């Protein structure tokens, strides 16, 4: 029943923006040969890649949440040089080309990397395993979660956290029952961004994890490979990726809306 208005003229750039994004997608959908679509996307290589992508993106998003939420909270509440440095650091994976990110990951976690010998002693070899895929995805996707959550946390402010403290709630309770619920829209946006980034990750994965069917060849890698021979298969596979992403995100949203219907 609220009646807040969006300026009418804003609809023009909004429509332009929609068109700009929508046109290529429509063009892409039009170019697909729908009769052969089924056979294109159900080859063993494709389904292997799709499943691997879904599994790794889910795990990576979870990792992003576990490591990223705390980082975002610290960033949103911290001030001073340390915070600025930390923020810059978090930005780096966002800026460097993913391929270089993969090189950096190799230099840190690869056999000859900084931690290589340590990991070796532990009997762990992460590079070129499914673990490496997860690491690569987490590395590139975490900044998305951190930055968008930080924005939401700053917008939400600390008014309600103060109230919570005066009611005897410790920092943990406050975090769990006040901070997170109030920043939920931002957290959801951030998770979607991170999940999508994980699903689409290519450069760091191919460099750090390689491209082995069933183990490290995620859907984007498969698409890249298909494109070599048949761009149509690549496009068809991409549409599958889009469908999956929209489905997963749609489900999350629906659940969110039913949960947070009463937020201000």
């Amino acid at each position, binding site marked *: 029943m609220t009646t807040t208005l969006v300026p009418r003229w804003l609809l023009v750039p909004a429509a332009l923006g929609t068109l700009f994004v929508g046109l290529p997608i429509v063009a892409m959908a039009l170019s697909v040969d729908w009769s052969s679509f089924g056979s294109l996307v159900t080859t063993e290589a494709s389904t292997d890649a799709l499943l691997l992508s879904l599994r790794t993106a889910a795990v990576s998003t979870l990792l992003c949440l576990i490591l990223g939420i705390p980082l975002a909270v610290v960033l949103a509440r911290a001030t001073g040089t340390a915070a600025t440095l930390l923020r810059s650091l978090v930005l780096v994976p966002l800026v460097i080309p993913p391929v270089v990110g993969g090189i950096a990951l190799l230099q840190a976690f690869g056999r000859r990397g900084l931690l290589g010998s340590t990991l070796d002693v532990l009997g762990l070899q992460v590079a070129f395993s499914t673990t490496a895929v997860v690491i690569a995805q987490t590395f590139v996707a975490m900044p998305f979660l951190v930055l968008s959550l930080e924005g939401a946390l700053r917008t939400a402010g600390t*008014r*309600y956290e*103060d*109230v*919570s*403290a*005066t*009611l*005897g*709630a*410790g*920092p943990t*309770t*406050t975090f769990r*029952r*006040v901070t997170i*619920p*109030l920043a*939920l829209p931002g957290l959801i946006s951030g998770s979607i961004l991170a999940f999508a980034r994980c699903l689409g990750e290519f450069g760091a994965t191919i460099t750090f994890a390689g491209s082995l069917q069933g183990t490290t060849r995620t859907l984007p890698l498969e698409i890249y490979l298909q494109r070599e021979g048949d761009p149509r298969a690549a496009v068809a596979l991409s549409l599958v990726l889009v469908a999956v992403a929209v489905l997963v995100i749609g489900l999350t949203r629906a659940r969110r809306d039913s949960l*947070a219907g*009463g*937020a*201000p």
Partner: protein
Amino acid sequence: MTGEPHALHVDLTVDDRDVALDLTVGQGETVALLGPNGAGKSTVLGAVAGLLRPDRGSIRLGDRALFDAATRTWVPPHERRIALLAQDARLFPHLSALDNVAFGPRSQGTPRRDATTVATRWLEEVGMTAYARRRPRELSGGQAQKVAIARALATEPAVLLVDEPLSALDVESAPDVRDLLRRVTHDRTTLVVTHDVLDAALLADRVAVLHAGRVVEEGETSRVLSRPTSDFGARFAGLNLVRGVASDGDLRMPDGRLLHGIAETALDDGAPAAAVVAPSAVSVHLDTPHGSPRNSLNATVTDLEPHGQLVRVRTDLLSADITPPAVADLGLARGSRVVLSVKATEVHLHPA
């Protein structure tokens, strides 16, 4: 200090708000903070609650330092057992009224079920049971205020800080909630900020008047209300507060005389009670008038002093504000024997 684990000693300076004061609230005592807008009342509450770190000074609860600039002590708000009912309700927008009230108990580890029971009880105390399931944005201003009061009280704090608790309440709810506050503050260390003289008179044992961040007057409620020394105190107050025991719906004063009045809530015979009488409601006669006023009390004038456009006639019993012509007319002077008459309808009786 020992033996008063919940006595509050506040000595703080907040430079950028120009607040610098020293204040003590005894264990179980209720102190009203009065003062004009911007005097620093909310600042004091914020510092005691731990939402604001003063620049200098210390805040102690009994022997325990909550804040001490010298030793860099700082107890975070949630470890202070101090509840703050702030000036704006600030209910959690994502929780129902019930969950808002249950928030405190649950934060202190009460199981969900028990917390809900406690919350339900407090919602009932403020008459908001019917709204338990509502989200804050579905509540009216006064309803939200009541839920906020319930939420603060449900934490069963050692010290209670309340900032203008009744400002949004209607004339029907205000007396009930005031009575509730009176009961819960009775043996709890409390600081209450108010602009309403009745709140101060009825809730507070002592009153501190703030002005521009300084305590300009402090003392027993009845003393400050009847004989304020600060400008603001004078403006604010001027109430007679008479203590005694309830007797058949009236007040028996310590000297045995009866003061007829109107009780807003039922009074038990023999229970301690207090009467609040505005000086403006007290008439001065030279001999007992015949008329509707129920109270005609002999008294001796102790002082005459200007009070704005009026003259305040102080007696050994009640003060009266009358116009200068009336003083002249009656030929009043220090030592005059007078009859004070007050309508029973002007004498407000409350449990004390």
